[in-house]
């Protein structure tokens, strides 16, 4: 786990997740993980050829994080993947009480692009080939987490 990783929860087994915010399977995995007593680390793995908005959304999520609303925006985006255009992003910002102008500047910044690219590269190095891919105890679990993994993480 890295110093600037996005972490949710402070106890339970560690689950490192590579995900694409436009991917429906990631939305489903998010619902399953939200119910589990785990520590989650989120890393970006946007697959643009498949999901044209994936990288834009990854940048938007990082920008929301710079205003302290990473997981709120994460839940918002994955909770409704039917509204992912810019005006929808601005509306989401308003609903989360974020400064829209700052959000827009941040999401287009070099720092945010580099951050997302770094996550993506780390996923490639780890052999990630599908989203979502969860790592638990160093073992990769590609796809929506299966029932046995969910059961194991529920304990």
């Amino acid at each position, binding site marked *: 786990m890295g110093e600037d990783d996005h972490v949710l929860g402070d106890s339970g087994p560690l689950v490192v997740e590579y995900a694409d915010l436009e991917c429906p399977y990631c939305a489903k995995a998010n619902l399953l993980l939200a119910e589990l007593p785990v520590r989650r680390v989120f890393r970006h793995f946007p*697959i*643009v*050829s*498949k999901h*044209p908005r994936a990288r834009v959304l990854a940048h938007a999520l990082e920008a929301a994080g710079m205003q302290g609303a990473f997981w709120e925006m994460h839940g918002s985006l994955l909770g409704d993947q039917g509204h992912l255009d810019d005006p929808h992003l601005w509306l989401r910002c308003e609903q989360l009480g974020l400064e829209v102008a700052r959000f827009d500047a941040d999401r287009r910044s070099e720092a945010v692009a580099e951050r997302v690219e770094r996550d993506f590269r780390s996923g*490639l*190095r780890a*052999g990630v*080939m*599908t989203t979502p891919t969860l790592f638990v105890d160093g073992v990769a679990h590609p796809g929506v987490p299966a029932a046995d993994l969910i059961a194991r993480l529920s304990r």
Partner: protein
Amino acid sequence: MIEAGARAPDFSLSNQDGDTVALQDLKGQYSVLVFFPAAFSPVCTDQLSVYEEVLPDLRARNAALYGVSVDGAFALEAFQKSIGTTIPLLSDFHPKGEVAKAYDVWVPERGIATRALVLIGPDLDVLWTHQPPSPLEIPGANLIFDALDAVAA
């Protein structure tokens, strides 16, 4: 499957647009033949989509990817569009699986090529190959970069 050190078996196949791509065209560059079982299977879709994201890095290393399956060229054209990839897809359709057989990745009982990677060098020698234990397992893009590192060393 074919092993590193062998001469790359010759081929001449139609790509998704009906243009011919032959082994001789790959001279002077590193080429990876990405054999995959079938267009439109969900696993292949992820494999080529992720590879698409690393094409600029591969280009910078004088390396190019070519998908190869036993699907017809028109099916490959539709598949290429549907997953938004620019990776050329070569049709090993007629005589069916001839190139898959030459590279020894043919699965006779299913009539398809198994999932495999073959790295061909600038002089058209096979430099590295990889076949996952199961065709459902997708070889990570990292394997291609590791292989390029190894042959450049």
